[in-house]
């Protein structure tokens, strides 16, 4: 990429006051570096991915409200986790975490187990227990 072609599109980097380094060529075809504040193509891909995550969070919220899944699923989605990541944070097998996703089973969980989830999500046990999807 030529130095003069480097995109300077406003992007998500702005929120952290960041730019990124790109290797570009100058007028004599020699390599140098330049900073960019962002690139639209990349921003669109990132936005698409975040949109998908938000859809999943919204769906999980609805499902908690309708008593289809437990709050574990909502907070898992909210923290951009999947079962694999969550199970390693709480130190339990995936099948156990999947069981705890059922509202009926979730209601029977001990404080100790709830605490593990609450810690993984960075919330209190009360917040976890009392989340009703609203």
């Amino acid at each position, binding site marked *: 990429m030529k130095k003069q072609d480097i995109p300077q599109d406003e992007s*998500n980097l702005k929120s952290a006051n960041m730019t*990124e*380094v790109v290797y570009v060529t100058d007028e004599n075809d020699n*390599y140098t570096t330049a900073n960019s504040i962002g690139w639209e*193509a*990349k921003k669109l891909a*990132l936005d*698409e*991915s975040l949109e998908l995550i938000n859809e999943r969070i919204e769906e999980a919220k609805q499902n908690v409200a309708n008593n289809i899944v437990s709050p574990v699923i909502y907070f898992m989605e909210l923290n951009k986790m999947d079962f694999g990541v969550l199970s390693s944070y709480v130190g339990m097998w995936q099948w156990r975490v999947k069981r705890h996703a059922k509202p009926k089973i979730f209601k029977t969980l001990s404080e100790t187990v709830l605490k593990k989830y609450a810690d993984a999500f960075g919330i209190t046990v009360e917040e976890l227990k009392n989340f009703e999807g609203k």
Partner: protein
Amino acid sequence: MELNFEHHQTAHCENGVASNLLLNKGLKLSEPMIFGIGSGLFFVYLPFLKVNFAPGFSYRPMPGAIFSKAAKRLGIKIKREKFSNPKDAQSALEKNLENNVPTGLQVGVFNLTYFPEEYKFHFNAHNLVVYGKEDGKFLISDPVMDYVTSLSEEELEKVRYAKGALAPKGHMYYPVYIPENINLEEAIKKGIKDTCKNMLAPVPLIGIKAMRWVAKSIPKWAEKKGTKVTNHYLGQLIRMQEEIGTGGGGFRFIYGAFLQEAAEILKNEQLRELSKEITAIGDLWRDFAVDIARVYKNRNSKSNIYHELSKSMLHIADLEEAFYKKLRKAI
């Protein structure tokens, strides 16, 4: 306590940490030099491994591979340590700081407080340097940042003990031995040969063959999984290509810069030409990303768009294959 450490921003975290740590020891190697010697150019397709609900693509080798390979080829020794207990990890780090050793860390990105919110994913192979501690906070040189930052003890522990795939487990590393005389020419040649071998590998999951597999899959995804899923997969392809320090188009340019430097050192004009060639290929990867982005923008774009994207990626794969074959002969 603050060590005498120079922060330089780089395009990719692993090369950046490596080049910043070595510079601190008096060995001046550019980011592209580390990248080239460490055979950083790569492509791998892992269709069965789902990352962020899409297949795994990567334009880079396994985390740690670039620095390890570069160090081995340069005769440098790096010490790597992991700790099962976070408290041990912290005291080992503090001991290093007391001994004037800036230290590289592998960390998870999700809890990096200074990163933009949108970039926080459960990706655990980010790299940064801790170069001091002041008022209870660790001083951080994160190579993809313009400026140095800091993290509290608690914040640093969180990122060092991120869980999930590639969990860092407190991984820290630092050079312990740098030879007086470095045979740069030999290291460059080894790096180039290895890159050609990987990219031309006769297995379907890596290199050119993997690119072709992905390219041929694009229309099939559209047929079987519908546009929404296909667009998400393609988005993942761009993000892996272009997001902070992941590779792709940007990596081709770093490699171009490497070949230009290598041409001087090896006095090999052919490498200078090949540098131009990989630069042109990098531009095509960027165009490819723009074409994918266009699919998002005009939601009802023409129906053969996925075939066209597939064709462009196959074309890039052809050009890259020719490039590595020439490169292999050039050294």
